[in-house]
């Protein structure tokens, strides 16, 4: 693997980019799911019943984590670009990833 791909900035950029792509694909589906509420609360509920299985819950963990990850890494980019933040260690990237995983886990554990 070339050295540039082991750098924290590249890892951060790839996590940011891949989570962004995943969210862009997910979003229209999310809007369609919510719009089932147009047919009443029962319609949305029965749709949501479909999502009460481990595979879907794993995917939901991924989505919540992806959202949180994209946001935290995005805040890092905004800080570098607009607040002239001079990053010196990989710690920030690790913290962003950890916070995102935490958000995902909190969501999944609350689904009961």
């Amino acid at each position, binding site marked *: 693997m070339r050295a540039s791909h082991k750098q924290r900035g590249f890892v951060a950029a790839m996590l940011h980019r891949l989570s962004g792509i995943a969210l*862009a694909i997910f979003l229209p589906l999310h809007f369609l799911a919510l*719009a089932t509420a147009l047919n009443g609360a029962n319609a949305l509920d029965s749709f949501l019943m479909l999502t009460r299985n481990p595979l879907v819950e794993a995917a939901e963990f991924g989505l919540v984590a992806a959202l949180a990850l994209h*946001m935290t890494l995005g805040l890092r980019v905004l800080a570098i670009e607009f607040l002239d933040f001079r990053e010196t260690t990989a710690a920030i990237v690790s913290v962003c990833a950890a916070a995102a995983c935490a958000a995902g886990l909190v969501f999944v554990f*609350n689904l009961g």
Partner: protein
Amino acid sequence: MSALLFAAQRLSAIVLAFAVAVHLGTILYASHAGLTAGAILARTHGNVAFAAFYTLFVVAVAVHAPIGLRNVLREWTPWRGRTLDLALLLFALVLLLLGFRAVMAVYA
């Protein structure tokens, strides 16, 4: 043009930072409280503040996501130029349409 797209992306990012924080908090609260769809809809029906917030959210996303995808496609595929820009504009409109429809579904 490029500077304006960049500015729009970064500004929508700032809007989304707030919106996503609120949204994540709301979703985590709702799942923790074990709210059913009916319970959630009861809170969102006729709730103007809710509708306004999520409308802003939809607009910000419709600006932010297509511009981000534009970078990805230009760098990782051979696709670029006017056709790419038009395709992404279409995607933005799709997000706006589906997004507003979803907001109306939950508000009305």
